[in-house]
């Protein structure tokens, strides 16, 4: 397994594969299928200061090789997440990346400050890009200035490294990435969902009660790969890549593009074992392609072969 070992700010990962936020709850459900110890890390569902009910239903719709969701940040709220979910997760030897959300900079700061004190929370993931929250989420995600301000405010209070989750719904993803890097982000996670919509044939109305929703799944992978490729060449902080990953081959494509680790979202709904399956298959895939360590693949699409052979295992 040591060929998969990966080190990122705040995170000592057995392997670079983890479930993406919002697609794995707080782990309880998937623990019915396999031990969560197998995972590199777990990105838990977005947490806000108070309990949130989120959007009306229907909240999901299917598209060609993808799905739309408009959950609307439903979560049990900071207190319950800290006192129940994170405590329950302590039984596993797996670092937690806490996805932090809010409707104001103050809310983000409050949640970040508190949740980053929990011992198994090894990093924060700033969810500045959720397209389903209307009270301001959108503005954070598409404006480099606000994103940087938010990043800085959270960095100031966080006990653990801060990863900023980028929205793909922007003209220039590199600008966003560089702005949050400069503001002190320790890493990036990307991409969140693309804003999309589906209309019902009979009623002509949106299938989602919320109207629009976030597009995820295999259909968005080419956009995600392009963005990781662009951003990884311009920033010096690591990237956790995601968007449509379903197989070990998909995960490898993200590493090639420049991600240091890979998250799996929608695919968990299709196959509850998808994360451990990818973790199992990755070493074989790497070996078959002549790699000795996963780190050799990172950014290989744009780095010279020579430049990547010194791996850290």
């Amino acid at each position, binding site marked *: 397994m040591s060929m998969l070992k990966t080190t990122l700010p705040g995170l000592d990962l057995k392997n670079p594969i983890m479930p993406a936020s919002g697609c794995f709850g707080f782990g309880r459900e998937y623990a019915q299928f396999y031990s969560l110890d197998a995972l590199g890390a777990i990105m838990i569902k977005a947490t806000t200061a108070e309990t949130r009910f989120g959007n009306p239903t229907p*909240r999901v719709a299917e598209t060609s090789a993808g799905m739309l969701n408009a959950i609307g940040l439903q979560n049990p709220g900071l207190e319950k997440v800290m006192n129940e979910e994170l405590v329950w997760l302590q039984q596993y030897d797996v670092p937690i990346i806490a996805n932090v959300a809010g409707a104001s900079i103050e809310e983000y700061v409050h949640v970040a400050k508190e949740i980053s004190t929990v011992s198994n929370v090894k990093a924060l993931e700033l969810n500045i890009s959720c397209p389903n929250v209307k009270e301001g989420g959108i503005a954070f995600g598409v404006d480099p200035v606000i994103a940087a301000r938010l990043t800085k405010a959270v960095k100031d209070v966080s006990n653990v490294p801060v990863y900023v989750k980028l929205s793909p719904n922007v003209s220039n993803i590199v600008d966003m990435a560089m702005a949050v890097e400069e503001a002190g982000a320790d890493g990036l996670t990307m991409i969140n969902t693309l804003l999309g919509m589906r209309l019902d044939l009979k009623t002509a109305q949106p299938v989602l009660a919320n109207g629009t929703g976030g597009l995820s799944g295999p259909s968005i992978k080419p956009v995600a790969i392009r963005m990781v490729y662009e951003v990884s060449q311009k920033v010096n902080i690591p990237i956790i890549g995601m968007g449509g990953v379903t197989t070990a081959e998909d995960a490898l494509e993200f590493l090639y593009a420049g991600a240091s680790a890979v998250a799996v979202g929608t695919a968990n709904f*299709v196959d509850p074992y998808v994360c451990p399956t990818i973790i199992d298959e990755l070493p074989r895939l790497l070996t078959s392609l002549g790699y000795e360590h996963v780190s050799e693949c990172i950014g290989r699409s744009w780095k010279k072969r020579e430049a990547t052979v010194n791996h850290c295992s």
Partner: protein
Amino acid sequence: MIKHEMMQVVSQRPLTHNVYELTLQGELVRFMNEPGQFVHIRVNNDYLPLLRRPISIAEIDQTHEQFTMIYRAEGAGTSLLAEKQAGQSIDVLGPLGHGFPLDTIEAGQTALLVGGGIGVPPLYELSKRLREKGVQVIHVLGFQSKADVFYEREFLALGETYIATVDGSYGTKGFVTTVIDEQQFSYDVMFSCGPTPMLKALENNYTNKPLYISLEERMGCGIGACFACVCRESEDSTAYKKICSDGPVFQAGEVLL
């Protein structure tokens, strides 16, 4: 205990022009116990369609490790499902959720089972289990028209069975509530599954006896992880239930319809 299995198709047959009965075999059946639970089915190995489809368990046969589903072939997923043939295998996740509570009713008492359209199937296993327990069952089943009626004979074999059709082409013209109002059944517990407007009508009109209802919602994970399928407990609180894992069966009033 939720299992994931490639189950074998034992048989598939059309019940109406667009409703099919599909029987699957596999070890997963051993874990099925409550009537009203469902399975989450992946109809294709690739991404078209991407998501699983939730379908109720209509009958459980532990002896042969088989169970039956009854579903309407309508959209992309169920249409593909209808093409499956004996000998092929299907990716099933289940059994999921909580079913109808059998312990709310005792031998000798009477259960009123009210189903609408494609909500009828889970009532079949429920009815069988109630009968096994010595409970009397009355079935009131609503359909659009004569051509949509299925399983009348099967339900009749278990107890009194009334059919309502919206267009009056068979049985009583009208809704299940038309039958219930006409017949003035005396019963102890009502169990129901069907479209939300029907469940609402039942919840509003028949308040003097316990009522259990099975809900439907579009699902992502089907196991409680994604928050796709929630419903509120009441209008003025953020408290909620997940239909896939807390339900799909709830007591009337437990959640907001």
